[in-house]
């Protein structure tokens, strides 16, 4: 049965075509729209508020959390320093268990690999469990377009991802893909698919989704999942879910394909125990997610479940360029979403404003790293550098420092505007010279005289207008501190 799609709304359609890259002013424009959207604001506040409260409570009850965080950081550092070795080990173990391993340089290679596999298998239905890596490479759209003759039906089976897919929309959060939609909108989307008005009731909507998705699970020829972790010592892929959909995606169809970013590797099961204690606590405030699946190759002799054929696709897509650089810590991310939930910018704008698969602080860091300095130029500035992300990160990634370094990289690579560059040269010259600094202050006091009204500066044109449009600007004081000091305090 074919999935019916309601007509796409104009705004979601736009988003679909923006892809992973946004233009210079993109964030600002989208954020400007987002902060005026009260429904969006309420949805984000509800989700992030609950997630942060649950996370704080559950981490508070785990006294060893700070130590685990340090261990997680060091495990990731060790892994990245020896990633080639661990990748080889992972591949060897998977192959020894009868699985296939494919190293994909980019999204294109993944699309070719899976598309050709689907052709060989004469696949019609592909079920998918939630995977940010496949979102990153827009796997669904590209398979549908590049392999149109196969007429594939690709079905997302994570409830949120499925609803996003039905709505022609993109996830706006790593963990809560449709947190931007409220119950009214979800009812609208699912009613469109049902062909009848469903009641706006969680149970009714849930059981409708369950019925529909069961049909797809049973009909699937290929199942695709991402991976939360890859354990190199055994070749085990670990997925965590709350809905159990990954279990059905990996055990019902005869073929299972895992698309895993190469940074998801960890050396051993002992290391894994550090991350499993941190991931769900940080992401959703659970001690563990409902399901934690361990999959090591295809179904073995005497085993009761598992796919007959197993493929591990290891995705680079720009990640290896980050290895060994000042930005390597960005690869330590375990995609828990905690940095999004605590980010005061994300909490105002939601994920779509970032114009990228990955939103929030981690998205602002890795999008330009994966795509290059001149792409997504706005994202390193989508932060007040408050550091809440770093504080919340279960791996201790100094996200705000990485954003600073990205801003600096833009300067070094000459992609910043001439005006701004000149302004900071001027700043440098003024601030290295006490005399010039003093004179600037005095000149400012003279210059502001015609601009004062009721003790504040009148609305200004130009860059300062960005301030005065929404906030009063205090005038320069009649006497500076240094003048008062000279006169005697």
């Amino acid at each position, binding site marked *: 049965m074919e999935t019916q799609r309601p007509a796409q709304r104009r705004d979601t359609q736009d988003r679909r075509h923006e892809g992973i890259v946004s233009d210079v002013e993109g964030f600002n424009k989208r954020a*400007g729209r987002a902060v005026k959207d009260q429904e969006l604001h309420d949805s984000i506040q509800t989700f992030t508020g609950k997630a942060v409260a649950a996370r704080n409570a559950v981490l508070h009850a785990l006294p060893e959390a700070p130590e685990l965080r340090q261990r997680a950081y060091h495990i990731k550092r060790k892994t990245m320093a020896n990633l080639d070795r661990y990748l080889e080990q992972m591949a060897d173990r998977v192959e020894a268990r009868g699985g296939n391993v494919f190293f994909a340089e980019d999204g294109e290679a993944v699309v070719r690999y899976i598309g050709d596999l689907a052709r060989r298998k004469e696949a019609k239905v592909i079920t998918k469990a939630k995977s940010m890596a496949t979102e990153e490479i827009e796997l669904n759209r590209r398979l549908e377009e590049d392999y149109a003759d196969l007429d594939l039906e690709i079905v997302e089976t994570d409830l949120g991802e499925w609803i996003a897919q039905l709505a022609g929309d993109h996830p706006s959060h790593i963990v809560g893909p449709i947190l931007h939609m409220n119950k009214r909108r979800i009812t609208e989307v699912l009613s469109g698919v049902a062909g009848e008005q469903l009641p706006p009731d969680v149970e009714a909507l849930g059981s409708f989704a369950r019925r529909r998705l069961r049909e797809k699970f049973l009909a699937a020829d290929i199942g695709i999942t991402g991976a939360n972790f890859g354990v190199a010592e055994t070749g085990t892929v670990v997925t965590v879910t709350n809905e159990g959909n990954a279990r059905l995606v990996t055990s019902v169809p005869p073929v299972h394909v895992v698309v895993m970013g190469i940074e998801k590797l960890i050396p051993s099961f002992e290391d894994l125990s550090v991350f499993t204690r941190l991931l769900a606590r940080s992401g959703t405030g659970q001690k563990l997610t409902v399901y934690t699946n361990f999959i090591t190759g295809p179904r073995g002799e005497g085993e009761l479940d598992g796919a007959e054929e197993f493929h591990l696709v290891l995705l680079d897509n720009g990640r290896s360029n980050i290895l060994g650089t000042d930005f390597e810590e960005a690869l330590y991310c375990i995609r828990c979403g905690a940095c999004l939930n605590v980010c005061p910018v994300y909490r*105002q704008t939601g994920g779509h404003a970032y114009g990228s698969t990955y939103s929030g602080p981690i998205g602002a860091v890795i999008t330009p790293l994966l795509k290059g300095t001149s792409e997504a130029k706005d994202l390193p500035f989508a932060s007040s550098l408050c550091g809440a992300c770093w504080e919340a990160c279960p791996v201790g990634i100094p996200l705000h420092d990485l954003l600073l370094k990205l801003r*600096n990289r833009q300067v070094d690579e000459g992609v910043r505007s001439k005006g701004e560059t000149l302004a900071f040269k001027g700043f440098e010259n003024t*601030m290295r010279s006490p005399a010039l600094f003093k004179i600037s202050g005095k000149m400012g006091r003279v210059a502001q005289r015609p601009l004062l009204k009721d003790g504040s500066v009148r609305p200004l044109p130009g860059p300062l207008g*960005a301030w005065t449009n929404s906030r009063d*600007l205090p005038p320069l*004081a009649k006497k500076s501190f240094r003048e008062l000091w000279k006169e005697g305090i």
Partner: protein
Amino acid sequence: MKVALFVPCYVDVINPEVGVSVVRILRKLGVEVAYPEGQTCCGQPAFNSGFFDQARTVARHFMDVFEGGDYDYVVCPSGSCTTMVSHYYPFLFKDLPDERERSEELGGRVREFSDLLVNVLGVTDLGARYEGRAVFHTGCHQRRELGVLNEPRELLENVEGLEMLGWKNEELCCGFGGTFSVKMPHVSTAMADEKIRALEGSGADTLISGDSSCLMHLKGRLRRTGHDTRVYHLAQILDPENGKAG
């Protein structure tokens, strides 16, 4: 004890009364206060915008100015500018061993105002009076890089007539963020509005912070939206001689 006063550039020209209160309080406690007149700015605007070379020039000037004079400490009425020197100078000079060492030495002596009062001078009661119900906003650098969280509260709890209140999500950034406030004005303003809603919910009539930059942002939005909430830097509240006109 000899302390050098580091007055952030915007405090120097916009809120000089904050610096004056710091001087009065420290002198009353018997501290010898010097004001090295060569000082300008810590360089943070350039640094936060990614212009690291320009920030390094300003940082070198700052180190030259504050290294002389045999000061036991450098005190600054801003958690953010303190952090720039104590945390981000070593970051900027990471690959330049001589200057890195200089920055670490100086960084170890730079103290945020409330940190110096409570942890160095051992003072929590300054005999100040203020009639009002207030919330305190901890700047993000002060909260996360410096970890100076309780000190302002201890000082404020001893102010006669002042009732300190809690407010919702007080750990959230106010939205100033330096050039962020003009580069991303919509989000910056929305962040201020969230703080203002929390302030309204608390029932406070006064907003206090250890960072005049956060206050400039929040006060600017408060006034634009018709709020007459009183807004003060911590030093002004603690200074019995401050007329508290602002």
